[in-house]
């Protein structure tokens, strides 16, 4: 050991072992790597159980069409959880902002204008939720649940619970750019990965991400050092709203139809993805990349269980199993320092 240390000494003089690039990367990303290990193990088990089905590209293409919608909401939710809050209102925000998108497209405007409108509405809804939670001094868990019900109710009231078909999307430039195929790969996956990459940078290398960490870790200290704690929290919810709007836009584009239930099915999978991905529930730390891998894992469970040949009744059981096994795995990886 000491010999190795000596032989390395000249090259890495003055560099603490924990500062060496590879080790630093491993330490910084251990939660994400753990999630990746869970995912790989799961796919291996599926593959061994039914090699024929799992060597079929069509199965992966199906997941790659629906996964992006979850990714657009999982990455911002990691910010929310890291800041010490949780947002359960994003499914209704997704439904509401995509309703705006569908209305604007139906009214004959260019889909790009509809996208801009939906993003503005998503950000505004998210920011309002944040303002309510932060300046109203409410528990985000309960308040956002309430907002989710209320906003969904508004959606059902103003649309009479009727879906909106927007076939005119098919020929648009926006559709070709955001919703077509490239060499058989659904193009949404590239956009969502771009978004995840951006979020990961924002999380680790931007002032906003640093403040989110500090606010979730110790809001009193952050306040004493001049971080605007309430404003940071409100911004986090606004960011979640933007993610929900993106998810709604992409989901509507895939289906050419807006559904009154749009977003509803994502509540639990997105929340589960954040925690399966290795972000602990207590705030202060987390991982965007892990969250993305968590979303991948969660969206493969259903496809995988059915693909293996089990009945659909097993899906929920495996959802629960994967969540609990992941949490146990992360438990050994995370120490909560106070």
């Amino acid at each position, binding site marked *: 050991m000491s010999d190795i240390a000596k032989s390395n000494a000249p090259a890495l003089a003055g560099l*603490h072992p*924990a*500062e060496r690039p590879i080790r*630093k990367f491993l*330490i910084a990303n251990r939660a994400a790597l753990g999630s990746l290990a869970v995912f790989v193990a799961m796919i291996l088990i599926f593959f061994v159980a039914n090699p024929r089905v799992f060597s079929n590209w069509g199965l992966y293409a199906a997941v790659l069409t629906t996964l992006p919608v979850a990714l657009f909401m999982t990455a911002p939710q990691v910010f929310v959880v890291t800041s010490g809050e949780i947002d359960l209102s994003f499914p209704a925000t997704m439904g509401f902002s995509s309703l705006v998108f569908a209305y604007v497209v139906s009214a004959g405007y260019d889909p790009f204008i509809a996208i801009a409108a939906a993003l503005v509405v998503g950000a505004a809804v998210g920011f309002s939720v944040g303002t309510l939670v932060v300046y109203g001094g409410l528990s985000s868990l309960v308040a956002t649940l309430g907002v989710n019900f209320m906003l969904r109710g508004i959606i059902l009231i103003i649309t009479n619970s009727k879906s909106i078909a927007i076939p005119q999307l098919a020929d648009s430039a926006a559709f070709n750019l955001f919703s077509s195929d490239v060499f058989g790969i659904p193009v949404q996956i590239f956009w969502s990965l771009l978004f995840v990459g951006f979020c990961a*940078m924002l999380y680790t*290398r*931007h*002032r*906003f991400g*640093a403040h989110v*960490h*500090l606010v979730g*870790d*110790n809001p*009193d*200290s*952050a*306040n*004493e*050092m*001049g*971080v*605007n704690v309430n404003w940071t929290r409100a911004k986090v919810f606004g960011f979640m709203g933007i993610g929900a709007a993106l998810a709604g836009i992409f989901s509507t584009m895939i289906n050419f139809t807006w559904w009154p239930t749009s977003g509803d099915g994502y509540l639990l999978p997105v929340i589960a993805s954040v925690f399966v991905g290795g972000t602990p529930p207590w705030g*202060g*730390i987390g991982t965007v990349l892990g969250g993305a891998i968590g979303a991948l894992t969660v969206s493969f469970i259903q496809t995988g269980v059915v693909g293996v040949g089990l009945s659909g009744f097993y899906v929920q059981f495996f959802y629960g199993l994967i969540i609990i096994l992941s949490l146990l795995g992360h438990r050994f990886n995370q*120490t*909560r*320092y*106070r």
Partner: protein
Amino acid sequence: MAKHIIELKNITKSFGSVYALGGVSLHVDPGEVVGLIGDNGAGKSTLIKILAGVIKPTSGEIFVNGEAVTQWSPARSRAAGIETVFQDRALAPQQSIVRNIFMGRELAGRFGWLHLKKEVADAERLMREIGFTSKVFSPSSIVGQLSGGERQGVAIARAILKQANLIVLDEPTTALSLTETAKVFHFVRQVRASGRSIVFIGHNIHHVYDIAERFVVIDRGRVAMEKAKSEVGSAQELIEFMEDVARPQKAAVGETV
């Protein structure tokens, strides 16, 4: 007379019906070390939290370099060159040393992207400067893994990151070992030698006497005494005065005179 770098005038603070501060005035001149003394609950910490912008006073005025300020806040206090090492150290234990040192004043470009390499280099330089180095931890180490004295080192490194005019130390030696306490005192002397001002709050009157040039004794939300070191004579005299103040009847008699 030179302008006070900071002056608090007739500061009161009530929490509901309880008055924590009942009209306290405090000023700090360039390059001086002020010792702030008082029993538990006297209002010392409330006063320095008002100085740091963390607590808003119920009434009173704040002057920086002779000019009255409004909208006082932690960010404004720090921008005015006041750095506070709080009693609880105000750290984020799950974050790296670097992130703690740059808490609230991250080095970032115009669009908010962090200059991480510069932050790490600056943190390393600071830690060396205050004699706070180890083979065990690096700037990326998590603060929660450090000992009490090392955490105090991080809080102090943060206070001297920018050329502050005034460094406020709230009970900086509480729960520290003898060698760690010696390090803190070494640091205070360094700061004083560099011409910056210090407000030193302490329980141990011998410590405060050694280090400060002027003493302000706070008792039940009021300034009970304010004297320069030359007027006090010895630490024993300070201690006797504190014991006097602690006797409620005697203080009451003193008030009626």
